């Protein structure tokens, strides 16, 4: 048993607060801790309509501002329980996220909550902090989309980024379609669909997947009766097919597995093998049973395919395991990075109130190639 004083490192007076605000779930906690204090849904009661609304369902920037005020108030005073004034915040964000969201959250943080400083950390880059290496191909499969950015020697290779709308949301829609095909009188809420997905569904093997829907289809796994007021029969077929949408090629011939290969192809020759042998999967959807093994077999099958045969000479794919559950690996990366006290990298309240803008990698003002940009 751990005694009170053991394993307690010196806690500086103001620990950084680490937020990973995802489209479905928000992970929050303090820097230097091994796991988040909690994971909650990214939703809040709207002060006007008194209904629970998800942040991603906002109508415009002003609406987003009000929703974020309510949501962050809840986070600060109910979950993280800390006075936001002059607090130091670390926000994990995808480099591919919408600029308006990032600007709005900075405005809420500085103008409404008067936080001291914010450190924006790219989520893919933060992930490698959990591994102790500096080269990895980070695939993040979350709720709304799957995004991929390779990191080479600590630098994100932005040229090779990939993003597809494949994630928890599309699986839920897929499930809903299957249930509607079965009978018309079932109208399941997304929460129930998510529950069914988490508790009963899995990613099947590539071998079985190719046979699905053909004549010699394998015997489906056993059915499950979902308890509740209205009992729902979840057939074995649905359980097995729920995640198939992630692997089916879309009209552009793209899927989760092509994302990885396309990203590798876009990288220079001498980076390719290293990246293929340092893959890390993060995000809640990758925790599904059978996900990683299916991805590996899909990749191995694809490199033999005519599409990639001539472009890629990679024979093996290797995967990392972070010291965490994949759904909070990005948060943990932020929590580890947050212990480094680097005030130069933070956006402080003084600077924000003076300039009224958040530096952005895609903005030319922040990407001047002159010598001075390294100095600051």
């Amino acid at each position: 048993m751990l005694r009170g004083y053991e394993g307690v490192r010196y806690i500086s007076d103001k620990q950084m607060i680490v937020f990973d605000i995802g489209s479905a779930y928000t992970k929050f906690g303090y820097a230097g801790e091994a796991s988040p204090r909690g994971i909650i849904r990214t939703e809040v009661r709207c002060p006007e309509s008194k209904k629970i609304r998800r942040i991603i369902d906002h109508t415009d920037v002003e609406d987003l501002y009000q929703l974020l005020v309510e949501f962050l108030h809840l986070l600060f005073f109910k979950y993280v329980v800390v006075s936001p004034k002059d607090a130091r915040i670390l926000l994990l964000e995808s480099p591919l996220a919408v600029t308006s969201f990032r600007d709005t959250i900075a405005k809420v943080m500085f103008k409404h909550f008067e936080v001291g400083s914010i450190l924006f950390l790219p989520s893919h880059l933060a992930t490698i902090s959990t591994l102790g290496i500096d080269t990895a191909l980070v695939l993040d499969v979350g709720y709304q989309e799957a995004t991929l950015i390779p990191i080479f020697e600590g630098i994100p290779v932005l040229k090779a980024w990939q993003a597809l709308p494949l994630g928890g949301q599309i699986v839920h829609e897929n499930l809903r379609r299957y249930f509607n095909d079965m009978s018309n009188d079932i109208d399941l809420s997304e929460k129930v669909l998510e529950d069914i997905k988490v508790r009963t569904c899995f990613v099947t093997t590539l071998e079985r997947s190719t046979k699905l829907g053909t004549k010699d289809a394998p015997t489906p796994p056993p059915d499950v009766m979902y308890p509740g007021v209205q009992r729902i029969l979840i057939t074995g077929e649905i359980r097995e097919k729920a995640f198939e949408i992630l692997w089916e090629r879309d009209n552009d011939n793209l899927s989760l597995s092509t994302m990885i290969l396309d990203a590798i192809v876009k990288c220079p020759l001498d980076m390719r093998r290293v990246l293929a042998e340092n893959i890390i999967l993060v995000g809640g959807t990758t925790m599904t049973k059978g996900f990683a093994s299916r991805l590996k077999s899909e990749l191995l099958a694809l490199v033999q395919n005519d599409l990639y045969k001539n472009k890629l000479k990679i024979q093996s794919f290797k995967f990392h395991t972070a010291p965490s559950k994949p759904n909070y690996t990005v948060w943990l990366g932020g929590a580890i990075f947050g212990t480094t006290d680097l005030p130069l990298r933070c956006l402080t309240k003084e600077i924000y109130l003076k300039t009224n803008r958040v530096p952005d990698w895609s903005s030319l003002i922040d990407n001047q190639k002159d010598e001075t940009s390294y100095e600051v």
Partner: protein
Amino acid sequence: MTYLNQPDYVRYVCNCGSLKPISKIYFCRHCLMIRCGYCVCQKVDSHYCPNCMENLPSSEVRLKKNKCSNCFDCPCCFQTLSTRAGLAATMKATEGEENKDVKATPKKVYYLFCSLCRWSSRDAGIPDQSVATGGWPEQENPHTTRINALIDYHKILASIEKQQCERKKFHPKRPFMPTTMYSFTSTLLRKRIGRPLKPPMQSQSTAQPVSSIATEEIEELSEDIFTEPIDITKITTLEQRLQHPEVQAEKINELRPQHRQFLVKRSQRCRVCEHNVSKSDLCPQSIKFKILLAAFESPSLLPSTVRQVPVTEDPKPIKIIPNADLILPHSALILPPRDDAAEYDDTSDNHNFQDDPKLVVWRKGNKAVIRLHVIPNDTNENNEEPVIVGFVMQHGYVNTIAALEHKSPQKVDVKVKLYLNVGQLVDKA
């Protein structure tokens, strides 16, 4: 209490632009302005456990990760668990017959039980405890040492970066060197991509933790899943899993009770003058407030030196549209001061106000009912929209703060913007 939950008929316009009922607004005695929950600066005052009402200082709360060490939440339904006492199961049979004569006092043992969903620590296989107050096995994060090594490594990286920043200050820029000419040297390239100028020294590299090793072997999907029937009642829901992020157990019997989270009491400060507008009693049991007075118990501590520039948000646009006119009374109305005793005194209606009977319908104590005429813009009685009037109310206010600063109390007029929802039209007059 009822007016807290009913629809807001009378809404005040706060200076930040929010519309709030009177029960949700504050009045800053220093700025003489209305403030509301949206435009005050909120602070965490004290932490307490909502179950055992324990109150801890914030440094200890941080150590305990904001969780109560005595109270537990049910891992299934998230209610508070209660500790139950039971007798130890039968004495060990192998103890021999000699002990039979000795009066075997039954040992008291304790287990945790949820009175709502009937989860118990015995079902989950947690051994009973001999003391009622804890000693429950804690679940450890198996990765703690690894993460600590990574944190130490990052701290070293940070100190290297800091050193470099300082070193740069001593090397003035040499503007005579055109950067384009040298941009292909390895040093500049390294500088450009943010790598250290020299390869790290030996002493520093020893601190690097064992880097994670990627493997080709991945946990394959077990074949059982295609044949074995599953019992969905034994599988945890996502909420139950996320209650304990480090473990995220999949089976119900792997769930472990979680320490209860502390709640907080908040204090509110006016953003402009930084005086408290609301401060609650420190004692968690107490529901009383020390509104504003608390800030004046020690006048010497008042910030009289340099104050931070207040950060103010842009006011929100007011979205309400009044659709009726109001005929305002010509004379002012006088209300006697609030007197708690008068509430119970039916006889002392001794204030002889010379009221206009057309205006004042009834009055008692410091309450008065007045009649005002509203002319709706739209006289269609089938209109579903409620009639809303907006007006400005002016009232006198005696500033008692000035008295504290040894000045004579000032009387000021305060103007408040109001919106009144008077309901739908029912009949044409």
